[in-house]
């Protein structure tokens, strides 16, 4: 059967959209790669009740294609739908540093997922580092799990702009205050203008080098801190692979949408982190608005809420940028691409050979050619070649077996 709406991603945006759409009588399929719905944010919470929605879990969507009546969504099975909503969220953006590939170094989102979704304690003693307000809930989550959080290191410095933006979103302000109180009560220092610039250990992290940073993130005044776990996050990278496959327009690292979540391609909607909105509340609003682009008119209240959260997201972006000084944390031997073990030296050699852009560096030195297809190093490689990071086209949003791929020869199916 052909669904009215296929939703890819069962996080806050996708769940909201699926629920609202089903309530309005649409035939809805909701697909998610993981075995449980909820996405990164709602991991570990009770699964929501979704009546009238065909929930397909463990479905890793590797490609979407236009078809005559809409779209084909390819996972282990193929789902067809008249309209597609992509709500595939984001993953942590990380900058490389010496030792960042040692076990025990986790992304901030990964550390949180291990506690909230998997109910494990990721380590005994942790340092949380990176940039952005997300570091605070991660540190609190680790504390709640019984991890001794030794320091929280914010590479940027608080800006008046951010304070102003927070003040306009009381719920966010309250949240931040709550986290700060919780950290203070546990005597966890929160240091701005600091970063983990190296991790040390043989088979696993045993300690880190912490440095003070200039406003441009050049390190000075180093010291070491013992820990077995590091959680690092320098913002987020929207997972726009499926949207790029369909040719949707992007701006920076996210997909362009109008006020009802419509992308530049007819019939393709996007909501949540893929649109550049930050956080679950914005994702929920956008999930609901996406349905209104199909049925009825969007309530002005939702549109206003969305505009407010967008402004907040923009303030976040401007207040917590990744500044170029991180390059000084690297040595020639530092691995930049974890998959293909491409060092800074190898990238510099490729540039010396005439590679002037990220694509040519990739062709000559292989960063981004491995299993993750540049998801972890793409940002760094672009910056190291003097370019703005841009989403890469990936014909396979997930790797699939050759055997599974053979099922898509349409001559066979005919």
């Amino acid at each position: 059967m052909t669904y009215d709406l296929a939703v890819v991603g069962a996080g806050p945006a996708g769940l909201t959209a699926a629920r609202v759409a089903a309530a309005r009588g649409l035939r809805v399929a909701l697909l998610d790669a993981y075995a449980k719905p909820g996405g990164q944010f709602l991991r570990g919470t009770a699964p929501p009740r979704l009546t009238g929605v065909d929930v397909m879990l463990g479905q890793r969507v590797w490609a979407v294609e236009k078809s005559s009546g809409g779209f084909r969504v390819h996972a282990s099975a193929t789902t067809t739908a008249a309209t597609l909503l992509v709500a595939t969220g984001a993953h942590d953006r990380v900058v490389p540093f010496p030792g960042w590939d040692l076990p025990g170094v986790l992304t901030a989102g990964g550390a949180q997922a291990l506690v909230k979704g998997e109910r494990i304690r990721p380590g005994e003693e942790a340092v949380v580092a990176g940039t952005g307000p997300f570091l605070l809930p991660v540190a609190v989550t680790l504390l709640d799990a019984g991890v001794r959080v030794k320091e929280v290191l914010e590479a940027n410095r608080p800006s008046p702009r951010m304070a102003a933006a927070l003040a306009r979103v009381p719920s966010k302000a309250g949240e931040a205050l709550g986290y700060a109180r919780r950290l203070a009560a546990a005597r966890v220092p929160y240091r701005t203008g600091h970063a983990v610039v190296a991790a040390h250990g043989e088979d696993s992290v045993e300690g880190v080098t912490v440095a003070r940073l200039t406003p441009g993130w050049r390190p000075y005044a180093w010291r070491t801190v013992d820990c077995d776990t590091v959680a690092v996050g320098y913002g987020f990278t929207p997972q726009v692979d499926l949207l790029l496959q369909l040719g949707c327009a992007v701006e920076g690292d996210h997909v362009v949408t109008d006020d009802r979540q419509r992308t530049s391609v007819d019939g393709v909607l996007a909501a949540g982190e893929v649109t550049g909105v930050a956080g679950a509340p914005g994702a929920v609003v956008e999930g609901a608005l996406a349905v209104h682009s199909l049925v009825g008119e969007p309530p002005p209240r939702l549109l206003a809420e969305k505009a407010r959260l967008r402004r907040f997201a923009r303030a976040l972006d401007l207040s917590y940028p990744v500044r170029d000084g991180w390059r000084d944390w690297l040595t020639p031997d530092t691995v930049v691409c974890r998959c293909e073990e491409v060092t800074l030296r190898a990238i510099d050699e490729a540039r010396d050979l005439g590679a002037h852009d990220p694509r040519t560096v990739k062709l000559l030195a292989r960063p981004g050619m491995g299993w993750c297809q540049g998801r972890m190093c793409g940002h760094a490689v672009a910056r190291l070649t003097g370019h703005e990071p841009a989403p890469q086209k990936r014909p396979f949003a997930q790797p699939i077996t050759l055997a599974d791929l053979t099922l898509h020869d349409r001559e066979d199916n005919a």
Partner: protein
Amino acid sequence: MVGAGIVGASCAYALMRAGVRVTVVDRGGVASGTTGAGEGNILVSDKEPGPELELALRSNDLWRELAEECGGFEWEPKGGLVVAETPEVLDALTAFAETQRRHTRAAGAGPGDPETTPPASGAVAAVPVAAGNLRDFEPHIADGLAGGLHYPQDAQVQPMLAAARLLKASGARLVRTAVERFLVSGDRVTGLRTGQGDLHADAVVNAAGTWAGNFPQAPLPIRPRKGFILVTQPFAVPPVRHKVYTAAYVTNVASDAEGLETSAVIESTRAGTVLIGASRQRVGHDTAIDYPVLARLARQAIGLFPVLKDRQVMRAYAGLRPYSPDHLPVIGPDHRLRNLFHACGHEGAGIGLAPATAEMITAQIAGARPAVDPAPFAPGRFA
């Protein structure tokens, strides 16, 4: 030199060594076109007897020399293995190899004037492999094949690195900008108008790949023929040792069909991935992904190497092969404008044929006699 792909880089290398100062102009930089989308094949096995085979044999020797004197581009003299599914196909394949061997000898001995038809630098080596011995070459190859032929001269390089290394080693200047048109004075080309101003030169070489036919002052019938490559996950030890392909590949390469053709062409890379080709489609400059074609490539690959079945593909990409109506490269002086030379139209064989192409162009610019007879490649043949 218009174009910083493998042909432009090879020409720059050969010319600079011959004492010609070269500036290379490419809007995308080194290896940004077809060179960046291929497997790096250096094949004699798939060449029908004729001028292209002679060029391929000469190029094969030159690649071995380049690997010694330049290197740094993952030169792998791995050899090719062509397999046949049925006894009938094996017979045809064996007969084909015999014509390859015979032709090469004939080219050396005459009938032409030995002064104007220099001997090809080598002869094709092709060794029959019985069905029962295929696993000596490829331990993971499928059951039930009728046999094959081993071509020890077939080799592989990492094409992007090869272009970049040759260009770097040449010492030629690379200018990253678009070429708008040739500068022409009377009946001669005097340089290039580029996005960064005019460049004046005693000679201009058109190595612009799929765009080489599009200069209005000296058009050529060169068009793109699209091909996909599937890239598997990396292996610690890849399950494919040679370049392995089925006999159908040879007929597809020579075919004039407009529609989609596919045949299994499989090889590993130094990085541990397995590359799976090959498809041919004439759809202009469109490089969009076509999943049914990828599915067919996957099925053919599993047919040859069942061990790949449960392994994963990470990536796929399309490239455009610049082809001419008779499937021969276009090499030599333009028939309309003096001081303009073409080095293009190599279809899917550009990596393999680049050094011999460069040698030919260098000889022609210097007014010397090329090692391989240039007449069959003359640009004027389409006029």
